[in-house]
């Protein structure tokens, strides 16, 4: 458990006030964290409409479940967990699949690829193409800056699982972004070959 800092103490106070009946406390809590929740939802789901719905779902879930918050984790960690669960619910209901296929052709014009990479589009496409479990792990750790321990708490999985998902996700991104000459198992492998299809259940260790 992370020692509560000043912000977390304030968040806890708001949550407690909400549970005690303060009609404005939860709105203030949402105002503080909505942008972060939005970022997680959008990066995870890749679709603004779905992300907005997930944030709504998460806010309502947190609103209703506030009384069950026991303070074991920081409020931000708890809110991350709620929004991640909302995203996973939506992703599973959609039986979400990668929105961008893994590359099966030689890369396009390197100058174009460089331009895209500079704007982050290529990275975002690659992120969207990852299995959802790996994508969420990377969103939490690399994009939101959570520690592995915090991400493990959010996802309710062992830290080793978070490490594995992050590493596998980065490795796939390395292939998608063209950082690897020989991405697949045994050598030699034709250039541009893709890693094998992910386990649909995200069955990493």
């Amino acid at each position: 458990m992370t020692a509560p800092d000043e912000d977390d103490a304030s968040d806890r106070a708001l949550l407690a006030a909400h549970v005690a009946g303060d009609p404005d406390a939860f709105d203030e809590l949402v105002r503080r964290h909505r942008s972060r929740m939005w970022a997680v939802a959008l990066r995870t789901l890749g679709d603004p409409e779905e992300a907005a719905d997930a944030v709504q779902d998460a806010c309502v879930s947190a609103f209703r479940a506030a009384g069950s918050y026991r303070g074991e984790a920081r409020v931000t960690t708890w809110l991350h967990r709620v929004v991640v669960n909302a995203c996973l619910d939506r992703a599973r209901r959609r039986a979400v699949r990668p929105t961008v296929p893994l590359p099966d052709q030689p890369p396009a014009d390197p100058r174009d690829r460089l331009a895209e990479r500079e704007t982050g589009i290529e990275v975002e496409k690659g992120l969207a193409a990852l299995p959802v479990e790996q994508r969420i792990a990377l969103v939490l750790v690399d994009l939101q800056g959570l520690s592995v321990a915090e991400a493990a708490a959010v996802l309710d999985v062992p830290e080793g699982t978070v490490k594995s998902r992050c590493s596998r996700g980065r490795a796939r991104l390395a292939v998608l972004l063209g950082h690897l000459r020989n991405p697949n198992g045994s050598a030699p492998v034709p250039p541009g070959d893709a890693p094998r299809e992910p386990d649909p259940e995200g069955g990493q260790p």
Partner: protein
Amino acid sequence: MSDHLDLDGLADVLAGVAAPEHLDDCPSCRARLAELSAALPAVSASLTALPQPPEPPHLDSLVTAALATARVEQQPTAAPADVVPLAGRRTRSPLLWKAAAGVAAAAVVVAGVVLVAQRGGHDSSQQASRTGYTVSSTGTDYAAGASALSRQLPALLAGTARAAAPVLGMTGTAGAPASKQQLSPMTAPTTDSLAALRTTTGLAQCLAALSDPGQPGIPLALDYARYHGVPALVVVLPSSKTDKVDVFVVGAGCNQVDAKLLFFARLPRP
């Protein structure tokens, strides 16, 4: 010798969660491991460099509306036992963040209706049909969101809505005469807090906030009513699904920047 490591296997080695003996005997896998190890910092840097996505301007309204609904559901006196739960109805959020693009289109629609009124009504049916929506002022207090709205929806779309009798999920002035209109919102009374939304400009701006980008923002029906006791405008818009309609309940002050969204539901088209 065992099989070569695949990409996931190499990634697990780098994550420190696996240490297969195969690596000791396979220079090829060790070389690929080294290449992957060298590539990952650049990947991490690319991820870290991604900017935080800007929050869409409508998100605040959506969340506020969702929480308002949750609060209503939490109040035992406000939710009759046989009211349909609202959470399951909240199936889609509107795209509001390109609202400005829709202002012009919405203004055209409202202007068309104004034209109907100015023509004195001799061809109002034809014109109303052409412009495609009806305006009602039922004053109905939609107390339970989707349940009440779904009951009133056929009448709203048909232009025959009346102030609602107190039926399931709905409170209102039983038997009160309806003020159903098929004319300009400008002709409606302007002494209430919805006055701005009865003007061409005010309504156009509000419709722009509710319409999907690239869509004309032509409503199917409007009802100047109430929502949990406060003045509210019910806007029925076509849905992206042809068998549904999108029903928005907005408060006074709805404009292209802030829709003042009180409730949203996607309902079956009657």
